[in-house]
């Protein structure tokens, strides 16, 4: 019964987005660690996750959102700029990383906001 408190679609979606940003950071960390290794192929959050999440949010089905599983995979579309076959571009990765950190900040704020509203509803006083 109390599960209903934490299974609203928005809340479930935020949690999934937090998972995805954490995983994305892992992928970026791996890319930047291997920026100097010949032949390394950059990794990325699987491209279908964003679309699946979007359609799951659209259907307002929290079960469906919770069943989504972000994963990291080799980015097949990346083209190598150098002759050593490494597809990592340093400045692009750093930009992605900073965007990802900001996205993480937004998502934690959203989750916090949701929890605080819940607390307000329970206690009746803003604290």
């Amino acid at each position: 019964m109390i599960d209903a408190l934490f299974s609203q679609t928005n809340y479930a979606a935020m949690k999934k987005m937090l998972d995805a940003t954490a995983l994305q950071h892992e992928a970026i960390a791996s890319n930047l660690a291997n920026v100097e290794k010949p032949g390394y192929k950059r990794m990325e959050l699987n491209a279908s996750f964003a679309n699946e999440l979007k359609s799951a949010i659209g259907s307002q089905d929290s079960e469906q959102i919770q069943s989504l599983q972000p994963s990291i995979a080799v980015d097949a579309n990346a083209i190598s700029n150098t002759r050593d076959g490494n597809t990592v571009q340093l400045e692009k990765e750093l930009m992605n990383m900073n965007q990802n950190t900001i996205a993480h900040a937004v998502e934690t704020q959203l989750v916090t906001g949701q929890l605080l509203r819940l607390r307000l509803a329970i206690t009746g006083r803003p604290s």
Partner: protein
Amino acid sequence: MNILTGVNATSSALEAERIRMEVISQNIANAEVSHGPDGKPYQRQQVVFQTLLSQQPGMGGTAPGESGIQVARIEKDQRAPRLVFNPTSKDADANGMVAMPDINIHEEMADLITASRAFEANLAVVRNARTMALQTLSIGKR
């Protein structure tokens, strides 16, 4: 479980890049050494990186996890020594030529800067991971 996401790969990369910088500084320091411990001119050295596969897969299960990097070996560059005319040197041959290490200081500096940029990028990863961890810890606080 890892509070700082992705730091396994990052810390291995920091170490590998540091070793690379040490090897480069060794090359620069020995650029003029015509008589090494073995009596031969210093041979330029370079690092060879290899992938360090993570023990645990990524959170997705079957997907490849983060992969780190490590120094596989430090190998000697087999380029031939540069001959310099210096008949007063003890190492000079019958023609007065001294074999010097063929180290191009420009090449070494370019490598050094590349390595230090890669090092900085990995430090930025740690900084961002820390920010994200602190944000996560503050969930639920106002």
